[in-house]
């Protein structure tokens, strides 16, 4: 049975601003689900709720058909932030952080860190200061750090935003390589070309509402909602 994450009528407001209005989603492992939407549509809020970093005001989340709370959600999911964040240590310690928390033996950590760095083409970077690496390298380190803890729900918030094409290609390949029936990959982006390349399923979010869930071919060639049609054609104003 593949991993499954369901959101049922999830709502979230920040004071007077409604960020999410009754969002319901059903996501299965083995797929890359791309959250598409303009800036401020609610993508990041949704990702943070799925990562267990924020509580929803209403609604519930189910993991493998069982209700799941924030704290438990953080044990099965992880979020790679749009702007990569590094601890003030070397690359090795950054990558080992999650594994040390899980009390993995040191020799295993060393091997896994080396493998993860190879996956994002940063072999030999272990002793470098993480904060002194380039933006593209930091995003790849962040990705490798997330891969290492082997989450059931891998959340990527615009992982290639502001990166050059070379770094983007490396990151996209690394993401695709993590597809697994036991892993749900959710990636937020507003890059239509990237969504077309990577998505197995597209979720279009607008003004905190899901306006369409479709296969990429259907979404790009024959969007069902008017908002999606305008978004794909570049006519959507926000």
């Amino acid at each position, binding site marked *: 049975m593949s991993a499954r994450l369901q959101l049922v009528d999830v709502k979230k407001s920040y004071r007077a601003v409604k960020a999410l209005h009754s969002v319901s989603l059903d996501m299965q492992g083995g797929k890359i689900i791309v959250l598409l939407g303009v800036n401020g549509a609610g993508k990041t809020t949704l990702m943070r709720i799925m990562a267990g970093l924020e509580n929803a005001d209403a609604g519930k989340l189910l993991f493998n058909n069982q209700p799941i709370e924030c704290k438990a959600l953080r044990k099965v999911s*992880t979020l790679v*932030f749009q702007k990569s964040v590094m*601890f003030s240590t070397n690359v090795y310690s950054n990558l080992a952080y999650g594994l040390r928390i899980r009390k993995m033996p040191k020799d295993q950590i060393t091997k896994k860190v080396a493998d993860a760095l190879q996956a994002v083409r940063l072999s030999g970077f272990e002793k470098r200061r993480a904060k002194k690496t380039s933006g593209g390298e930091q995003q790849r380190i962040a990705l490798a750090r997330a891969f290492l803890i082997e989450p059931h729900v891998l959340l990527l918030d615009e992982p290639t935003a502001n990166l050059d094409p070379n770094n983007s290609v490396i990151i996209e390949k690394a993401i695709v390589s993590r597809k697994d029936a036991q892993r749900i990959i959710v990636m937020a982006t507003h890059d239509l070309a990237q969504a077309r390349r990577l998505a197995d399923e597209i979720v279009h979010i607008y003004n905190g509402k899901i306006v369409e869930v479709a296969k990429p071919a259907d979404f790009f060639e024959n969007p069902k909602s008017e908002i999606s049609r305008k978004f794909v054609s570049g006519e959507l104003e926000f």
Partner: protein
Amino acid sequence: MADIIVKAFQQAINLIISGNPEVYSTVYRSIYVAGLGTLLSCIWSIPIAVALGLYNFRGKWFVKGVFNALIGIPTVALGLLLFLLFIRNGEFGSLHLLYTLNGIAIGETILVTPIIVSFTANALGTADTQLRDLAKTLGASGFRTNLTLIRETVWSMVLSITASFNRGFGELGIATIVGGNLLGETRVLTTAIATEIDFGNFDVAMAYAILLMAIVIVLALTISLVERVRQEEGLWGKMSFWRGLGGG
């Protein structure tokens, strides 16, 4: 004026080279009271700062405001208060702390507490919120997340402790009122400078001042050098203690 400064430099060098026991013991006493005061203060200041920086509770703004206000407490006012507490009929008269180095050290402890608390709490409170999210999303518990934030801001703590030591090292009011400036017993660099000025020995006073500033500057440069090595080489990252603290 220039003559006095040049003469003072020569005098300072002579005093250092000659191994004058009174000079060295005065320097030692200054380091002792400021060092002991700062160390004692760390015992409670850092836990208070962690509580103020990482946890939310009712009235937190007021507590932070009080500590911020106390940073500028006049040392003569604090010295007077301690004097009244330490005199024979005072609340703590039985402890015989008046005119002792330990009495001065206790004054320094109180003096530097608001500095360590305010600076450290501020550093922890303004630590990147994304760092907190990062630790959590990698599976850290609340406690571990806080340990990680402490580790990430440890350098700010070191700087606040250094600033506190320097504040204690260079203060005069407590050392004069609580210490009594007893030659060979409680005379420290600042009170020695004041005494030499009173006697008109400006060159000796200047020599003591140069020694005081030299120690402060050497300490600051040493801390900067350690930070530079830490940044360049990841020295602290290699130390198992820091790896253990917060798992990073």
